[in-house]
């Protein structure tokens, strides 16, 4: 039974979503550390997986003119270069240090889309409206606007669940995800309740540890420079 004194400020679904987002950010941070060949192969497999699940969108992406879009989460250690057109591909680029705007090789992008990682993920899955993000200046774009619009409209035309799609790459572990999702919210609520009972020094220590684990502290997390 839930402790009546502890009322979560965020509902269980939001908390589970934050957990998913943090987990995927950690996963993304690991990709370039695998080396270019392995990370490219992994991302190619992810694209194949997505294409199999969303053939309409991926056919449309392949029918576009050859072009490159840099997808740059401003709070993540990694950016993604997506090539659309017949040679559809995805390539991870390490951003060092985190927060720097310029990336090596940026010049080859025809368009750039920048925003907080969680917002970009919500956008990709159609959970949030891109225009609304743009109006609020949470999202910025540069370069070929038509290319970004085509990409946005094509992906928004799908009902995409990137976590489930990415998890399916993990083979037998893929079956664990629905169970994790069902339970993540309530479990995280309990962790949050327990955290509030900690004395302040321990609470601050736990917050620092979480930040390091999610790769948001430069030089400390799995997504940072090795």
């Amino acid at each position, binding site marked *: 039974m839930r402790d009546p004194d502890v009322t979560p400020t965020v509902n269980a679904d939001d908390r589970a979503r934050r957990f998913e987002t943090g987990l995927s950010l950690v996963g993304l941070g690991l990709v370039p550390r695998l080396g270019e060949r392995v990370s490219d192969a992994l991302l190619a497999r992810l694209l194949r997986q997505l294409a199999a699940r969303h053939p309409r969108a991926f056919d449309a992406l392949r029918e576009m003119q050859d072009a490159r879009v840099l997808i740059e989460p401003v709070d993540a250690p990694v950016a993604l270069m997506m090539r659309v057109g017949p040679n559809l591909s995805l390539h991870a680029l390490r951003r060092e240090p985190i927060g720097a705007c310029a990336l090596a090789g940026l010049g080859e992008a025809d368009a750039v889309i920048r925003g907080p990682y969680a917002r970009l993920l919500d956008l990709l899955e*159609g959970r949030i409206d891109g225009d609304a993000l743009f109006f609020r200046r949470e999202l910025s774009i540069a370069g070929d*606007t038509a*290319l970004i619009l085509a990409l946005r409209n094509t992906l928004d035309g799908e009902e995409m669940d990137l976590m489930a799609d990415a998890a399916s790459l993990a083979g037998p572990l893929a079956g664990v995800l629905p169970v994790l999702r069902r339970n993540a919210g309530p479990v995280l609520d309990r962790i949050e309740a327990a955290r509030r009972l900690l004395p302040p020094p321990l609470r601050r220590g736990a917050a620092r540890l979480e930040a390091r684990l999610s790769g948001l502290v430069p030089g400390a997390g799995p997504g940072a420079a090795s």
Partner: protein
Amino acid sequence: MDNFELICPAGTPAALRAAVDAGADAVYLGFRDETNARNFPGLNFTRQDVADAVAYAHARKVEIFVAINTYPQAGNLDPWRKAVDDAARLKVDAVILADLGLLEYAAKRHPDLRLHLSVQASAANVEAIRLYCDAFGVRRVVLPRVLTVPEIARLNAEIDIETEVFVFGGLCPMAEGRCSLSSYATGLSPNKQGVCSPASHVRYEPRGSALASTLGGFTINVFGEGEPAGYPTLCKGRFVARDTPAYLFEEPTSLNAMDLLPELKAAGVRALKIEGRQRGKAYIGAVVRAYREALDSFAAGRPVPRIDLQAMVEGGTQTTGAYTRAWR
């Protein structure tokens, strides 16, 4: 008295499902070509998509309207006529047309096809509306966003076809169907090619901490750091006149007439339209759900709830536009 019909936009099949599932009474959409006024990259429906949309919507007692609301070009009528023919073949519930010649074609070729007059036709007086009704059997007119509620009431008292008005979304009230601002800057026409401020001619450039938007090489706005941004349309550009930057035509703001449901009902309006075929399915779902809730409350005689749609509006501001004409 009948309830309002809620007419909702869809630019993609996923957006269509979002609109239907959120409570639309009808969804309007366009084919993937120059025959509709939202001809943007990656947007709109193939013929097969429309067939699927009709099946999905009709199974849930929702209607499908197809907007064929650009103006055919001399010597190239085929895409527009084919769009009308295909809409009829796919058994959509209505087509939304603006061009006189196309209205005549549809009325003669498909006498059972329900015709709605597009807002692009800019029919805003009794005589014009009667002409469309008498000549082509138009069953509904979508009124341009230039009329006050009392003007709509007077109009409805004198015509015997249904009227539909916009209640949420972008404003385009200067001269719907007659605007040439974007054509001037880009050489491409909203009324002929269906592209207002085509993305191919839009650029966003950081200028220090500010963001500049350009259209066809013209700088049309510079948003300061943290200032809410708007669409890159020339009519919502900010220009310097007598050393003062100001919005000379329109401001980046969105229409929201949810507070006016009683007045619009008293004025005899039949259907309420949400704008935004270019918006994502998250917008469609949120706005349609909000309006469904408001209309259901209104129909049941309960107070219309105050639903926060601030996050969805352009430039971070909302207006009741010409309906209340607060600037007079």
